[in-house]
């Protein structure tokens, strides 16, 4: 049985510092053994190289990031293609697909994101993974 994951997408990492209720929600899940992960690829959207990155950097420095092995990257491609086959108005981004694939690899858990629409489409076939705003 895989450990459920708590996947943090780019737009929510800074909220670990700024949102006490979100912190409490993370604590509730992680204390029960859920595995918190920041896929390394989300740094491409979370970081600007400016001083305003300080909040993101602080959490990433403590938690670290999880690299994407080829099997998960390939699964991301499949998840993205499944959505594209339904001819959506907007194609899901590759980074969202990788975030979704990290969650799908664990089979159960939650993805926290500031923009749930595409991630919900990508994870439509994975009912044990919820996609939530912080």
């Amino acid at each position, binding site marked *: 049985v895989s*450990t*459920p994951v708590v996947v943090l997408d780019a737009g929510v990492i800074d909220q*670990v*510092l700024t949102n*006490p*209720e*979100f*912190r*409490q*929600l*993370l*604590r*509730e*899940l*992680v*204390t*029960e*053994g*859920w*595995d*918190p*992960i920041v896929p390394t690829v989300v740094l491409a959207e979370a970081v600007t190289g400016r001083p305003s990155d300080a909040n993101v950097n602080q*959490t990433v420095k*403590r*938690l*670290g990031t999880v690299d994407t092995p080829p099997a998960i990257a390939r699964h991301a491609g499949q998840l993205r293609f499944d959505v594209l086959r339904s001819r959506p108005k907007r194609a899901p981004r590759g980074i969202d697909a990788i975030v979704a694939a990290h969650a799908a690899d664990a089979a*159960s*858990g*939650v993805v926290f994101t500031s923009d749930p629409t595409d991630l919900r489409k990508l994870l439509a076939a994975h*009912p*044990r*993974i*919820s996609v*939530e705003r912080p």
Partner: protein
Amino acid sequence: MPTQKVSVTLEAAAIEQARRHSGPRGLSAYLDAALHEKLARDERRQALLDHLDELDARDPVSPTARERAARRAATIRAGAA
């Protein structure tokens, strides 16, 4: 990396399954990789909890927000079951 021979008791069915998946590198390498993954998960979890403790000490969560978070966590857990 130095290795050490240990004697442990594991579930027989899981060991058989691990043997089938372990491939040419063998059962020891397979279990070693699984142990490293588990250690990494535990370290990540503890690192986040320590970080949350430090942040909460400076900016504590209100009782109302704590209750809301507990309710949301229960819903999320139910969805993952």
